[in-house]
């Protein structure tokens, strides 16, 4: 009897250790991500104060200096300090990443919730629009919109918002379809609450999680799209610093002055990794996190 109890207890302890380890790991992931993103956001916000040089001032005599104490990331073809430019670029990139993710998140959630709740013609209309938006390759559609609006940052904002709401709408509709059959939603209807009240007060808390998790990956994607567009020359216009644009500027000197391309590119990678880590940890928490009673 005692022996059997011992076996059960040992098993329980082992299981708990395993679960603890995983929960701890997810904590580490989350806080690493938060630390990275917080540091870069802070760096971007304070760019005006902490950057050693003005981002756009040219010193042609100082061109192509390799990284050193006075120029951490070296200088580019116009003698501009790449580190200072990267700091200012962070602000542009992160701001776009957040605006072009959360504005579509709100639009997509409202449309998706309406589609899933009402069904019928509203659903058909919204979801066909989603299908059309998703059917075309993301970047091609944004390029087309940028071509209409004209190149520049505002074109990218409009293009990304016009495209990325569709995935949020699809996620939200799928969740709403499950939710609207739930008894507590039917109960809210039976209590005579208005539709906006049911949608925003009772349904919303259940719809937000998957969208938040997805938004972390989406921020990375949106920033990369901006960088890609700038790289292609239709995004941010010179001399405004933007990470993708800086990389594009430096590519022709890649073999002689590698730092112009590589170091800002690395910043972009770290920023993306930070958001991805947060996204992973959130998915872990909201989805599969295990908790054992103490």
């Amino acid at each position: 009897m005692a022996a059997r109890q011992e076996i059960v207890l040992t098993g329980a302890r082992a299981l708990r250790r395993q679960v603890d380890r995983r929960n701890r790991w997810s904590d580490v992931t989350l806080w690493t991500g938060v630390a990275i993103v917080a540091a870069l956001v802070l760096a971007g916000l304070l760019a005006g104060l902490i950057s050693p040089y003005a981002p756009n001032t040219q010193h042609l005599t100082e061109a192509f200096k390799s990284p050193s104490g006075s120029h951490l990331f070296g200088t580019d073809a116009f003698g501009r300090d790449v580190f200072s430019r990267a700091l200012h670029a962070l602000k542009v990139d992160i701001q776009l990443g957040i605006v072009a993710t959360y504005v579509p998140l709100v639009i997509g959630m409202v449309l998706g919730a309406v589609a899933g709740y009402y069904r019928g013609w509203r659903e058909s209309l919204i979801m066909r629009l989603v299908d059309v938006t998703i059917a075309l390759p993301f970047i091609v559609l944004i390029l087309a919109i940028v071509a209409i609006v004209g190149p520049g940052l505002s074109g990218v904002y409009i293009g990304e918002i016009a495209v990325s709401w569709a995935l949020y709408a699809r996620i939200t509709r799928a969740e709403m379809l499950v939710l609207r059959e739930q008894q507590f939603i039917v109960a809210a209807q039976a209590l005579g609450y208005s539709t906006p009240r049911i949608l925003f007060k009772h349904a919303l808390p259940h719809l937000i999680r998957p969208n938040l998790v997805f938004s972390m990956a989406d921020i990375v994607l949106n920033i990369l799209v901006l960088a890609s567009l700038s790289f292609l020359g239709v995004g941010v216009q010179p001399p405004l610093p933007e990470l993708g644009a800086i990389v594009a500027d430096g590519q022709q000197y890649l073999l002689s002055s590698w730092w112009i391309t590589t170091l800002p590119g690395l910043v972009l990678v770290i920023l993306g990794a930070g958001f991805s880590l947060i996204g992973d940890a959130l998915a872990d928490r909201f989805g599969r996190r295990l908790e054992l009673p103490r």
Partner: protein
Amino acid sequence: MSALEQSGAGRGQTVARPGAPEGGAHEQSATAALELRELTVAFPTRTGLAIAVNGVSLTVAPGKVTGIVGESGSGKTMICRAILGLIPWPGAILGGEIRWRGADLVSASRSALRRVRGREIAMIFQDPSSALDPVFTIGDQISEPLRVHLGLSRSAAEKEAIELLGRVGIPSPRERYNAYPHQLSGGMRQRAMIAIAISCKPELVLADEPTTSLDVTIQDQILGLLAELRDEYGMSMVLVSHDLGVVAQNADSVAVMYSGSVVETAPTRAIFSATRHPYTAALIQALPSIHVSEPRVALEPIPGQPPSLDSLPPGCPFAPRCRYTTDACREVDMTRVPVGPEHETACPFAEQVLAGA
């Protein structure tokens, strides 16, 4: 695309059924709080139209408990949901009337229905663990109708909600006010659900299998509570159950449903003492008896399965399983005929075949 598929979320759309009485000059009888007339609810399926509620007429007397019994899929729940205009998509009310306070709820506007819901007619759901929203405290959920419908302030609603929690028998209501549904037991959850339903003092409560998800001792307490509340508030009640015993103990009158049709209505006592439909008789024969003194009688199950709702047989839907079936059963039109005081049956042969029973 058929008209059925266009129905909105909140309620099924009304589609005029050929031959259904057109609204207008129908007066509601004075002895009924709620009156259903020829209510028909259907769902389009791949194989055809599934008739979930097939021309049901029913009255709920004021201040009384009307029981609806029937097996799963007989249309009990759909009647409740039709009354509140909450037929799930893609179903719809095809015809009939629901007379409430002199108006017809089937043709009522969305906003008129919303005024009725919660305030005049409230519903208690079968499974309180899924009918309570897991992300709000039960206090929040009881206060909400008070604030939305009665316009109480946050603090007044809280005070009232705590009182309601105490009234439905939840111990230390002040502490429970801040509890989430998962922190309560099944019985407590159902009490909270009842508190929500009665919060605005409705005139009619639709109790859809209120005790099915609870164990038997708790069942009894909850039914007792409902009876107390009904007396105290003078509410009418529709008590839906698949359990003949629950209905027998708690309802003043009973409607027995089979495959979307009401086959027999009677005062509760009469349904047992003077059964006038073979289906009701078969149900009663399938009930175990607890009286040891009685000679042992084997329980008699009803052979076969209820018919598929999208291919109902002509005439009486129970005919294929009925022990008294004759060819004439295929001609039965399921209109109920009176066979006693407030006693009606849809079986025209009942008095003949059940005379000895």
